[in-house]
Each structure stands twice: as C-alpha cells, then as structure tokens.
C-alpha cells in the first residue's frame, strides 16, 4: 500500500482518536444544567492557544455574540478552523485572536466582497496556514466524529492546495487507485449557534446544518448559543429533533438574535447594510478601530450591539425579510 505524496502543511491538531477517546471518556454524560452567561462560557472554555472551530456557514447561523465576547476577553494565539469562514473570520481577524489557521475559505464574504482587514492580517505573516477545501474540512470533522484517524476523498488530488495541506495521497488497497487522506480534526472548542436548546445542551438546528452535525461530535468542548431555551419535553416528545445531544455540549447560552448580522434560517435574514458597513469601514484603520470600539469593545453585552444597529425595529425588519414579507 503506497503513500505517493505527503503535503507540507502543518497539522495544528492531533488526529489520533486515542487522544480524543481519553478526553471523551471523562465527558459528563449526566443531565446537568449547563446554562451560563456568555462571559463565563467563553472564559471557561476558550483558552489562549487552543484550537477553535465555528459552526454555521460564515454569514449563516454563526455565533456572532460568542465571537464578540472572544474579542472582548482578548483571547490570543488561537488556532482556527477556516471552514466556510466569512463574517466569523472577519470578526476574529479584527481581534487578531488567532495565529494559525486551517484554510478552506477565508477573508471573503462570498458575493459581498473581500474583507480588506482580514486580507491584510493574512498577508502580514502573523498567521501560519495549512490549505484545505470545504469538503476536505467537512471530511476531517466526519473522521473525528466517526472516531477514526482519517477519511478518504478525491478532492484536492492534482491541485496545488494539497501541497500545502497535511493530506497524503495513498494507493487504495481495493482499487489500486489514488485517494487523498483527510486527517481527523478534533478542535478543542466548537462554538455553534442553534435555534433551540434545552438547559442540558440538547440542540436543534433548522435550515442547512453544513458540517455542524460532525463538528459538535468532533470537538472536545462545545459551547452552544441559541435563539431560545426550550423544555426538554419538546425533544422527548419528538426524538427526531435533536441534532446535537447534550453529552457533546459543555455550555448553553440563550442569546436571541445571537447570529445577527448573519442569516438565521426561519428566524431572520442577514443585515446586508451592516455587513457592507463592516467591509467599507475596514478600509480606513482609524475608522475601523472606532467601529470596533463602538460595536464590540464598548458593548456590555450583545443586546447593546443590537440596539446600536437598529434594535427591535431592525430585528423585526430582518424577520420580515426572512419570510419575504418586505
């Protein structure tokens, strides 16, 4: 069984399921109340130097409130999973919170354009990078969730990306064909925003789940923010609802509108004006500093940020937009 090729990229996390097994064995499988303040959740579970991953899809179902708190607490030298990272990446780059990054998609906000500040940060030499793809990263979380050290795929074969990844190209012992390997990614912490959770951490997601099913299972710690806390009975009465079971979860923060200015499917649409403001103001470092002070650093909590950007009127407007009632 040949190994044809090995990428030069650094592995920022250990793909060995045995290391993860030791951790998961100790995880609490008891139904205990995990509700806590956002300050405590971030303070307790996001530690300088650790590797974090963000749920959602950049501007969709992202845990904005949790990320603002990471900036406020001045977290540094994090490792970051840049998997379909858009506004989330922009925020964390604004705080210069990370110094290494697995890249699938970064610095851009899809059709909206490129974050000039995030680009500058990535061109500054301050961030070590390893190159992947969206499916490659999804595969890495899937491998971790399955408790295996890697998963095969044909994405990346032949590309330059694989040279800067930590994939290897092997010969399949069944077909004698070439396949790339995607090593399991067990983040130290995953931050995931969901629609509903109970106090134990059972959580339900509407709309696309992207890679969050597997991410929640791969991460050593999971911090959930949710639009609403619901009673556990809601889940017991329909056991098809829970996507993330409580025993994966370490903290639950109830934060209505917690994904703003992102799009929360079936709740509210993205605030395209505010996202545009981010992209615009970033071009002027002075203005951007003032913008961050106003919107993140000076805010005592997430509601203050919401109030500064339109408050209830804006939330209702975005809800109408979500349901095409604008």
């Amino acid at each position, binding site marked *: 069984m040949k190994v044809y090729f090995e990428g030069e990229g650094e592995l920022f996390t250990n793909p060995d399921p045995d290391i993860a097994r030791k951790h998961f064995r100790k995880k609490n499988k008891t139904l205990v109340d995990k509700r806590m303040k956002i300050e405590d959740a971030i303070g307790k579970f996001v530690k300088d130097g650790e590797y974090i991953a963000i749920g959602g899809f950049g501007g969709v179902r992202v845990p904005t409130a949790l990320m603002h708190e990471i900036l406020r607490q001045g977290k540094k030298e994090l490792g970051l999973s840049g998997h379909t990272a858009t506004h989330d990446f922009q925020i964390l780059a604004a705080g210069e919170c990370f110094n290494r990054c697995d890249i699938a998609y970064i610095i851009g906000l899809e059709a909206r354009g490129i974050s000039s500040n995030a680009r500058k940060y990535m061109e500054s030499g301050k961030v070590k990078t390893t190159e992947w793809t969206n499916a490659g990263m999804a595969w890495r979380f899937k491998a971790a969730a399955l408790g295996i050290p890697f998963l095969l795929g044909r994405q990346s074969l032949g590309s330059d990306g694989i040279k800067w990844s930590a994939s290897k190209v092997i010969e399949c012992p069944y077909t004698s064909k070439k396949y790339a390997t995607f090593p399991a990614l067990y983040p130290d912490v995953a931050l995931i925003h969901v629609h509903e959770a109970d106090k134990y951490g059972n959580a339900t997601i509407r709309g696309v789940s992207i890679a969050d099913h597997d991410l929640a299972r791969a991460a050593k710690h999971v911090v959930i923010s949710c639009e609403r806390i619901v009673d556990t009975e809601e889940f017991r009465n329909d056991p098809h609802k829970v996507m993330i079971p409580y025993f994966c979860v370490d903290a639950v923060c109830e934060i209505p509108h917690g994904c703003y200015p992102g*799009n929360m499917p079936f709740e509210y649409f993205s605030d395209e004006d505010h996202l545009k403001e981010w992209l615009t103001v970033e071009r002027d470092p002075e203005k951007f500093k003032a913008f961050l002070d106003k919107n993140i650093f000076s805010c005592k909590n997430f509601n203050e940020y919401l109030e500064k950007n339109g408050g209830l009127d804006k939330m209702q407007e975005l809800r109408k937009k979500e349901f095409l009632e604008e």
Partner: protein
Amino acid sequence: MSEYNSMEMMICVAARFMEDGCSAVVGTGAPCAAGMLAQKTTSPNMLILFEAGGVAPLLPTMPVSVGDSRTTWKALMASSMTETMSLTARGMVDYAFLGGAQIDKYGNLNSTMIGNDYRHPKVRLPGSGGANDLASNCWRVMVITPHEKRRFVEKVDFITSPGYLEGRSSRDDSGLPADTGTYKIVTNLAVMGFDNPERQMEIETLSPGVTVEEVQENTGFELLIKSDVHETEPPSKETLRILREEVDPHKYIIGR
C-alpha cells in the same frame, strides 16, 4: 449588442448548456441566475443544489450566500455540506459552476493567491471553499467569467480547482475521477471548450461581432480554434424576458 448586456448574454448562453433533467451545484450570482434561467427554459426538470446543503429549492430570489435561507426555500431537503459533497463524489452531479481570479489554458482555476510563494503571497484570495471539491468530483465544470488578459493566463499561480492540470492524461493520472473536467468557459467574447486530445482551451463560438483575433488579444496564452468556429447564438427575446422579469427582476446580477 444593444439589446442585452454581456452579463445577460453570458447567463443566457451558459443556461443553454444545461440539458433537461441534469443536476448542478450552483453558487451565488451569475451561476445561480443561469441555473434558474435553465429551469425556466431548456431544463425544466433540472435539479439545483447548493454546496452548504440546499436541495431542490423553489428559489424565490437570488441567494446572497450559498448557505442562506433562500437556498432551502420550499426545498426538498435542508441537508448538509457533507450530503452535497458526497453526492458529487458518488457521481450524482452533472455540473458545477465555478470562477476564479485566474484561469489557464488547461482550465485550471486559481482562487487562492497571487504570487509565486505560498508562504508569502502578493495577494491572498479566499481559497478553495467548495470549488476544488466540485471541480474534482462533478462531471463537468462550467465557468462564467469576463474575458480579460490578466485573468486568462498561461499558467495559474496556484491550482485551486483542477482543470486538465498539464493537459493530455494528467488529470486522470492524478487520481481524479475519470471523464470529469472543465467543460465550457463562457465569457463576454466567446464560448470555449477542451474537446481535444491536448485538453487545451479552444474557441468554439464567438459572441456576435467578436473576432478570433479580439479573443486572442484578451487572452494571455495561445488559444486553439475549433475548425467549425461560428457565432454564438444570441439570446432570444423570450429568454431575455424571463431572465429580466422572472429570474433577476431587481437586476442584482444583470445590472452589474
């Protein structure tokens, strides 16, 4: 050319390649418009997918993100990226629409960086996202792009999404699935394909009023020219009407 702009032209031409009943992963912008237009014209039974998990939505408006809630509006599934990507790996997806900062003569695309040192890029770009995955596993890659010399380069600085790599059998040799690769490049000037043993970009049809020389002048490498090169059929009035009234009434895309 006054009856339609070049974006409208490109969308209409790209849509035409979607045979009825095909499946496609589309992105935001022009690809999505082309998909929607195809569904309303040549391919009423087209299966539209979005890489973040939207399956067969009844798109009410243009999405701003390939994961936003428009992509699951009245959809048959709000699934996951793993679901969509595994569909492509199983060979269930005919077309992917991709773009890039650079494209080369073998149809390789670059959306990762400009420069010649990965560790010190002149310009950092977003990276693959799902582009490499789709280019690897979908049967055919479609590219809609403005035709500019800085974009059409001899060799991309970084192969983010594989076309035919170094031509001939090099794509197959890399281990990528057989019979896959870049299918058509639709620009404001021409439609180009790779239907030759070298797997090099080849002019197939020219936009009305455009000459081979004009295309070549806007391209950073020598293009092959198909023996029966002819004019691209312009969009019909009815197709334009559907594009303008039903697909993109707010001119998000065609107003660019």
